[in-house]
Every structure is written in C-alpha cells, then in structure tokens.
C-alpha cells in the first residue's frame, strides 16, 4: 500500500474538565488520553498500553470510569470529565488518594492515577447496586464491598509493581469512610448545558 495523503478532519468540542468548561479543537483521531496528556497538559492519566488493557489511563466520564485511551475525544462533546488532577478539592486529598498514601498502595506510581480514578468509580458502582462477577445477591440496592468484590472490580487496573495486596485494603478504607466521602467528586462549578459545536467554534 502506498502512503496516501492523510486527511485530518478536526472538530470542536466542549467538555467540562475537572469542573471547568473547556472548549477545544481536536484532531478526530485523538483519544481522550492524548487530548489530556498532549494538548491540555494533564499528564496524570497514564499511557500503559493505549489499547484498553491496563487501566493506567482511567478517568471518570459523567462519573463512570472509562479507559481514556479507548475513547475518541470527538465523541465527548458535552461530557463531564474528572481526571486525577481534579479529584483533590483544593489542598484536600480525595479519601481514595489518602487511603493509597496510608496503605503504600503503589510503588512506581505509574498505574496509580488510574487505580485511584478506577477505585472512585468502583465504589460508586457498588453503591449504585451494580453487581460484579462475584456478587451473590444480584438484586441488592447497594453492594457491600469486601476483599473479593474489590479484587474483582479493580482487575481492569494492572500494577506491575504488584501493589494489589495494599490496593485492596486502601479501596476498602476509602469505601468505608461514609457514603458520600468515598465517592463524591468535587464540583467547583455547576454543570452547564453544553453549547453546540458551532457556538464553541464561533
């Protein structure tokens, strides 16, 4: 196959990023991960595989955890995104961040932002009654997290340093800190209706 001229369609999108309305123009090929890391200077989300296989890039989109490397930025017009940089509220660490520090739930730290965002999402999912592979009672309004549940729900986040034995108790510590503390995301600004692409571009 001969190299052909690469067409580079670009689109304007508006997202709410860590509570701030942000309008950006993106190359349609750009993943959310590369948008954050290369265009917006938010390098907390990590690239471990770029294929949805390691979880290092986990961020929260509309409060649910996603692999930022598998999400094309252009699809996120109107989304509310929280990254690791937006988890701590001012100087105050998020309970999951605190628990990771207290439990030494990391070594090199490269998987850590993804683990933490994933834990925030997992705690919320359990609270919302989402069952996992190991959940016994599929009809419970909320799933009570235990070691087995946390291990299962956190298995999308690989840690080659092998900190799992500390990550599981850290997630449980944070989950146990009360129904709100463990999961709530700081909102510095109310969620605004999202303007159309034209409005942003104009």
């Amino acid at each position, binding site marked *: *196959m*001969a*190299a052909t*001229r*690469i067409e*580079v369609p670009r689109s304007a999108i508006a997202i709410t990023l860590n509570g701030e309305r942000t309008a950006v123009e993106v*190359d349609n*090929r*750009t993943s959310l991960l*590369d948008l954050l*890391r*290369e265009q917006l*200077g*938010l*390098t*907390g*989300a*990590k*690239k*471990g*595989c*770029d*294929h949805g*296989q*390691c979880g290092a890039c986990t961020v929260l989109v509309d409060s649910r955890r996603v692999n930022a490397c598998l999400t094309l930025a252009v699809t996120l017009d109107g989304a509310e995104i929280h990254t*690791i*940089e937006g988890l*701590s509220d001012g100087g105050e*660490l998020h309970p999951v*961040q605190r628990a*990771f*520090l207290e439990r*030494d739930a*990391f*070594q*090199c*730290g*490269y*998987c*850590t*932002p993804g683990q*933490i965002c994933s834990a925030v999402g997992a705690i919320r999912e359990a609270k919302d009654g989402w069952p996992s592979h190991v959940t016994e009672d599929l009809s419970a309004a909320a799933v009570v997290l235990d070691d087995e549940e*946390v*291990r*299962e729900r*956190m*298995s*999308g*986040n*690989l*840690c*080659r*340093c*092998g*900190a*799992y*034995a*500390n*990550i*599981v108790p850290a997630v449980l510590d944070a989950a146990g800190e009360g129904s709100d503390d463990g999961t709530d995301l700081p909102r510095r600004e109310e969620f605004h209706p999202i303007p159309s692409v034209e409005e942003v571009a104009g």
Partner: protein
Amino acid sequence: MSAIGASLARIEGIEKVTGAADYAYETTAEQETLYGWVVQSSIVTGRILDIGVDAVLALPGVVEVVTWRNAPHLEDTGDGELNVLQHAIISYRGQPVAVVIAETLETAREAANVLEVSYSAGESDVLMSPDHLRLYAPDKVNPAFETDSVIGEVDVALADAVTSIDHSYSTPALFNNPMEPHATTAEWQGGRLELVDSTQGSSVTAEQIGALFGIPGEAVHVRAEHVGGGFGSKGSPRPNVPLAAIAAKITGRRVKLAYTRQMMSSLAGYRTPTVSRMRLGADADGRLTAISHEAFSQTSTLFEFAEQTAEATRHMYAAPNRRTTHRLVALDVPTPRWMRAPGECPGMYALESAMDELAAAAGIDPIELRRRNEPERDPELDVPYSSRDLIGCMERGAELFGWAERDPRPAAHIDGRWAIGTGMAASTYPAMAQPSGAVVTAMPDGRYRLGINATDIGTGSRTVMRQIAADALDVEPEAIDIRIADSNLPKASVAGGSSGTASWGWAVTKACRELRISLQTGMTIPPDGITVTATTDAEIAAQEELSRHAFGAQFVEVRVDLDSGEVVVPRMVGVFAAGRIMNPRLARSQFIGAMTMGLGMALHEVGELDTVLGDYANHDFATYHIPACADVKDIRVEWLDEEDTHLSPMGGKGIGEIGIVGAAAAVANAVAHATGIRVRDLPIQPDKLIADLPARF
C-alpha cells in the same frame, strides 16, 4: 531515634497520588516538541531494500523520516542493539528500521503505519533448545561469573547415590513489562545532549549515549525524576534512547519518543527462555552427595547476554561433588537482558523444584531436607557467609503458614471441586554494592542538601537515602533536601542487582560523616554552605572476600480446580533474612510486589514464540497476562532481624529481587502436592494439568 528502620512514607507520595509526578514523556516544555514513532522490521533476517520515505514526507505534519540512509553515524560501543539505523541489515523481527517524526502524535503514528519498507529476507533461526547444534560456552556469564564450575566426581557420586533425581525444568521468555513503556525526550543544545529518560541509571545512560555519539559522557545530561518501573529492562539504555537522540539531532528540535506496549517485547529486553537439567544425588539420610545444574539459554547475534542461570546453585546447599555449566545459543532474536533476579529467578525455580522432588523421593520433609544440607561455608567459593539464616526463615515461615499440620501425601486433600496443596521453596539473592559518589552541603540556615544519583523506580530510594543521610548527619530527615536521578550529580550506580540502597547509601553515609567532621571545627557556614563530595571506590575494593547473600523461604497454598485445571493461590507467606531493613513500610511493598510477579511467572506469563514469523506472538496485556488484582489473595511477609557487619555501613543486603526468587518453585511444589502432577515447564496453565487431574469425590 534512628531514621533508618522507621516506616517513613514516600517523599513523592502526594505527587504520585495526585498525578503531579512527571515521567519521561511528560516534561511539560513551553517550547514545541516533536513526536517520534519507531518503525520496526517485519522480517527476521535479511536486508532493507528500500523505504518509501518520500511518500510519507509529503504527508502534512510529517517533519522527517530517519532511516539508515540519513541517520548520523554512531560509534561502535560493543552493543549492537544501540547502533540503530546504521545499515540495511536486519538481525531480528521488530528491529528499528526508521523513525518517523511529526508535529503531532496522531500524525507520527499514522505516517509510521503507512511507511512502506521493502526487504529481502534471509534464513533465520529463533528456537532455543538444549540440543541446539550451535550451543557454545560463553567466556563469562552475567555479569562476570565463571561459566562452569566443577568440584569432585559428580557422575560417580550420582551413580552411587541412594536417592537421586534427574529432570529438566524450563522457563519461557518473560517480559518485564514495567507499566511505563520506555520513553525518552531528547534535545541537542550545541554539542550537548539533554535527555529526560525512563532509566534505572542516569550515569550509565549518559556514559553510553555519549560514547555512541562520540562525545564525552559529561556532554550528555540525563534526568529521570520519576520512573514507572523497570525490573531490569531500563538498567541500561535501550534503542529508544539513541533513536530519540538521533531524531532530535536530525531535526534540530526537541523530540519525544515512547515505545508502544507492543514494541516492548522486542525493544526493551526480556528474560531469556531457560532449560535447566538438574541432577541431585543423596545418601540414605538425605544428605546431598552430588549437585549438577546444566543451564541453557539464548542470546542474540547483536550482543551477548549470558544469563547466570546456575549461579545460585553454587551457593545454596552442601555437597562434596558439584557441577554447574552454562551453554548459550545466539539466535536471530532480540537480545534478552536482565529481568528481576536474572539467573537466580529461573535457576532457583529449577533447583527448588528438584529439591522438592528429591524430598518426595527420599520421604523427607522439604524443610528437613534443606536443613540437612545447610552448608557451613560457601561450598564453591570456600569462604564463610557474611551471614546466612535460611533455617531461621524456613522455621518462621513454617510457623506463620502452619506447615506442621501438612499431610505430605500428594493429592490427599480433595474438597469438592478443589484439590488443595501446600509447598515451599527457598530464596536467595546476592548482596552487592557498587562504587558511587554523593555530595552533601550544610547550609547556614541549618538545612542540608543531599545529591545522590539514585533512581527511584518505585523502590522508595529517594525516601531511604534521606533516612540514611539523617542518621549519618544526626539530624531529622525533614532537615534534608534531596536531589536524585540527575547525571550532573556525582556518578552513581544503577538501580539494579538489589544493590542501589547499599551502593548509594554507602556514598551518602561517607559524605555525611565527612561533612559532620568538618562541621565540628565550629567554623561559620558561608552563604553557599559547606560541601563535601565522597566516593566509595576504595571502600568497595577493600571488602574482604566473603559470600554475601540474602536468604528467604516462601510458602504457598494452592487450590486446583478439578474441572478446569485452573490454579488459585489463596495465600503466600514469605520470610526473608536480608540484613537490616531500612524502611519496613517500603520493604514490605517490595517483597509483596516481587512475590506477586513470581506468582505471574508460576501461573500466567509466557512469551509464545511463533517460529514461522520468528517473533513472540503475544505482545500486549490481552495476550501476555500479568497478575491482576483478582489473581492475588493473601500475601504475608516478614523478615528476620539480621545484623551483618560485613556489608555496607547501613547493614542491608538489598531486597528488590529476592522476593521473586523461589516463588514459582513454591507454587509448582504446592501444585505437585495438591494434584500429584509435577509441572516442569512454566507456566502452570490448565492444559498442563487437566488430563491427569485426580477424580472429584
């Protein structure tokens, strides 16, 4: 109170949990940075005929394509892997053939994908075997051990033994796979090269890259503030570093370049596949009369890496007749390199599996067998151990694990669909130290500035160096500002061989003690402080000849699913005697992390060689499974207090690697106990068990 021994939290912890810690690809520069993308060969051996550079250069946003035709000349430094883009010859599949440089990451990636490369392919040979016709004996094995050792009459002793075993054990190619793929940011400033690199040692990177470009090491400035793991794969520069430097040179711009996860299996180094033929002979009491360990592994045609697979066997157990050999074959493959406990890790899987088989054959408890073969001095070096507490580790581990209740009969404990078993294995790793330098300054405001070119690849060395300095200066750790991972600091050794703490800490201790002495003269401290620099070359050279090793014992329970053959490890216990432990909190993380990696080696990890394509086929985390959270249940770690005055002044033996040594054997031994099936080829995947599993009842 001593700072050494305190469970201080990581200095950089908050940066790491808030996403503020910058890794090599993330140094936010005001100036524009170009993106480099590596193009890899799709043939195993042969020549590049042509590369369709012009078509790709015509694409918008592509700045340059570097191939062997326009790459700057690199000096031959003896490592063919680093001599990238110097000629059209291909030596393995996945070797770099070009770097595409573009304004954006997306464009670089797409342009690299459409770059046309035509080849003329040659014959290739990629399969290692212990019968390979081109096996040879290397001059030395990594890093400088004798290739072979022979004491006594092994064959005679084996023939006369009351109990003997003769089995081969194999371990597959394994990939280090640190979570941060190798990455380099490079920029030339006149004749000087600025690098931010994901490396385990910025001194060695500066030296080697300087030599490649024909400039002094001091003209290369390397920083590695945060490194997302390495496990040996970043212990020396890999092709990413010269590729980024070439790209920066040819464009005159700042360029950053990272491997994809897929590139890691060919361009980052890996653990060689190994085969170990083990022969053990024992008398009626279970005392070893002969130990023979013949090891086979592979290297590439570009660089000789000879893994010291049988080295640990030389120091473990007493036996009057002994032999170890290493044979190597140079194949058309990427060069295998260090992966966590190279040599000890695969070799001890073989020895400790063989010891378990011998124990079963002789009807002796595995711990008792090891106790009966405890040597008084190092059996091959013929010198005393600086300290050795394998027996203490086994005893404490047995107690924690509940070994005494064990029914030794295999396949005797079936519970519904589960066959349950337990196993143990010994661990060992050498305690080493390399010469290093450190600089410390006393400031007039009462604070201290410590500079030590350590690298923190997740070990916590930044924190531990501060603890060591605090004790040597007799101040609070908080009074010390520490700088690491910068080649402008005095030269220091790599974070490897479990030797970082000893090597760097020794230099830190010396510099701080000398500073204290000069402060005692009561002189007033000038505004820019009083600075002392120290190096430890003399101290390291003057070490008396002793056998310095850490020891440990690992215990594992397995449950084997009789329907599927899946192995689950509900609990692991590790007890280690590794000298003085500098920081229990960080040490525990190292041990559990290494045991977790050992669990992956035992059950999951295998580089699957495609002999037709000439490459490992499973290049990503979907196909190369490393332990995930659900694989790891209860891991319990302890260590024995060990005072050893024959080590560095801090008295530690190093703990980064010993935790992986023996873990796989303990799992394999437990599987044999649970099922009666001895798996001698890792990993223990269900297909190796399913046909022969005991019946459910």
